[in-house]
Every structure is written in C-alpha cells, then in structure tokens.
C-alpha cells in the first residue's frame, strides 16, 4: 500500500514494468515553507472547475482508443463477476482464433499471474496486470500493458477485467465494447442487481449453458432483465467447455472486426 495516501496503487504490478508509482503523483510541493506563511486573514474566493473527476482516466482512454483505431485493433473489455468463466471462454476462443488471426490479451487480477499463464499456454501473448487492492483496471494500466504487449496491427485485443460487476463499469479503458459474461450458475436477476455494468455492455454472454439442466436458471427471465436495463444489449448463449454457441460468438467477433 502507498504510504503517502494509503491507496493501493503502489501495489499495482504490470509484468515487465518496474513497479514505480506511475498512475498518480503525490505532489507535496504545497507543503513547502513559503506556502505556509500566508496572510493571516486570506480572503476566500470561488474557482469554477466544471471538470469530470475521471477526466484524467477518460483522457488516457481516448488516447488508447485512438491508438486502437489507427492500428485497426479490435479491443474488447470483458467484465463479469469472479468465476463466470471468462478465462476459459478466452482460452477456447483463442485456440480457435489464433491460427488465422493475431490476438493478444491483457489480464487483470488482484494477485497471481495464473490467468496470463493459462492464456500463454495457448501460444497467444498475454500480460498480467495485478491491481493489488484495486478493484478494476484503469486506462493507465492498460496503456502501460500495451507498451509491453505491443499488439500487432489488425489484431484482436481482449482485456479481461478484474472479476467485479461494479467498479469496472465506470472506468473507460478505450475499448470498442464491454462484453459482460454471466454464467447460469449465478442468478438470473444479476442484470437488475448490477444494472450499471449491463447498461454499459454491448453484448451479454450467457456462459456454462451445458449446466442448465442442473440449475434453476431461467434464460428468458435473465435476458428480459438485461433488456430492462439495456434494451439494445445483444445476447449470445454458449458453453465454452462443450463448444455449443461458440460459432455464434466467433461470428460476432468477426462482425465487429469488419464494422
């Protein structure tokens, strides 16, 4: 943890990047002697700012987005709760895609390089970002990871966010779309419980449909719930394990690449 402010950013680790405190600075110059000897009755005044708190993140995200556009990279931000099967979905997707398309992956987790190791086992380059105590990836982390990863032109970049259905909704990374992954072992009311994430996503993947016979999960209710918070959301039902529905997902990816 950063000893200056108690934040967790000091624990952010990106493979291949030295662990300096880069994504925000602790400017302490105002503590200097000259500032502490002001007038005893300084007048108060108002300064208009009118700036978004996330302006800095949004600025870096815009820079990332520009880079993706120039290099014709399709960047997708995969979001879900922990355990929905994002990494398994990715490894199966990459096994099918990698022989004929360039792919790269940025993996976000609080700790361990397990997920990046799983991706690299498919032969696809991956960089693990450990957010320490942080609950989401931000645009700066993705920017730094991209410099290590150097994805090729015309490639597909998957950014697997930290498993969390709350915070990643607020942080633009510069991706083309957010893709929400929801597994049928979770509740069908998740889109209502975590509306911001499903409202921010272009596509909802209903994963693990091979388990439907064993769980009380109503697919139609789930889709209706998702459309309640986002009438435009597209839905693909699949099982990464059995491969059912994978063709539809790959077709969606192809369609996005051409868009």
């Amino acid at each position, binding site marked *: 943890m950063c000893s200056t402010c108690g934040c967790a950013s000091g624990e952010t680790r990106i493979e291949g990047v030295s662990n300096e405190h880069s994504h925000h600075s602790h400017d302490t110059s105002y503590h200097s002697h000259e500032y502490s000897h002001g007038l005893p009755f300084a007048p108060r*005044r108002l300064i208009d700012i009118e700036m978004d708190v996330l302006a800095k993140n949004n600025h870096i995200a815009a820079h990332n987005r520009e880079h993706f556009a120039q290099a014709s990279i399709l960047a997708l931000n995969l979001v879900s709760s922990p355990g929905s099967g994002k990494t398994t979905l990715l490894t199966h997707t990459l096994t099918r895609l990698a022989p004929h398309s360039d792919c790269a992956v940025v993996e976000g987790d609080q700790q361990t390089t397990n997920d990046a190791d799983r991706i690299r086992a498919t032969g696809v380059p991956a960089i693990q970002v450990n957010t320490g105590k942080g*609950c989401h990836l931000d645009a700066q982390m993705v920017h730094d990871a991209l410099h290590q990863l150097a994805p090729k032109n015309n490639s597909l970049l998957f950014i697997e966010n930290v498993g969390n259905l709350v915070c990643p909704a607020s942080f633009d990374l510069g991706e083309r779309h957010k893709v929400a992954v929801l597994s049928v072992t979770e509740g069908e009311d998740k889109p209502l419980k975590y509306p911001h994430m499903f409202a921010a996503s272009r596509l909802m993947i209903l994963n693990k449909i091979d388990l439907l016979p064993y769980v009380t999960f109503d697919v139609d209710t789930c889709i209706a719930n998702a459309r309640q918070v986002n009438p435009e959301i597209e839905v693909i039902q699949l099982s990464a394990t059995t491969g059912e529905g994978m063709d539809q997902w790959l077709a969606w990816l192809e369609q996005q690449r051409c868009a």
Partner: protein
Amino acid sequence: MHEITLCQNAVELMQEFGQQNRAQRITAVWVEVGAFSCVEPEAFRFCFELACRETLAEGCELHLETPAAESWCYDCQQDIRLLSPGVLLCPQCGGRHVRVIADDGMKIKRIEIE
C-alpha cells in the same frame, strides 16, 4: 469500493486548481454526482475526508449535489424522472422508449479557496 479512487482523482484535480490559483487552503468543494454514475454518495463522503488528509484540501467542506435521473419519454413526449436509474421504464406510461438525459459522470463544479 472505487469511491476511494474517485476521491483521489478529485483531490488531485482540486489541488491542481488550488495551486494554479495560489491557494493556501481549499475550504470547500461542490461536486455533482450524476444519477447514472454508480457512485454511492455516502461512500464518497466517507472516503473524501481520508483522501483530503495532508493535502491543501484537508478539512474542506464537501457539498454533494445529486440531481434526479432526468430522462425523456418518446411515447409521452415529455420529461420524466426515472424511479431507479437501473430500470429504463417510464413511470407515466410504463413504456421502454426512454432516452436518458442524466449524467453518468461525476463532476467537480467549483472550489472555494483562501
């Protein structure tokens, strides 16, 4: 949980403007939390005080403005207020044909310095 990050970003911005204006202290700040911003005002308030410690803004007064979820219903052809930002449903006609006007961001409106 991300409110702490937002607070740090907010304090950073406030400091920047405070220093530019040769402030010795930031005494108050006005922040607008958009209805669709997924920021919990109470959590923000809690973290804000912590984020301000040992900065120009230490002990500053926080004015949080939380405007309603303003939207427009195409069916009723009028301004409406959603009951919950999570459900895009017109409270008048029950229709889904709704355009969200409310902000999803979080903005620092102004600061008071001395």
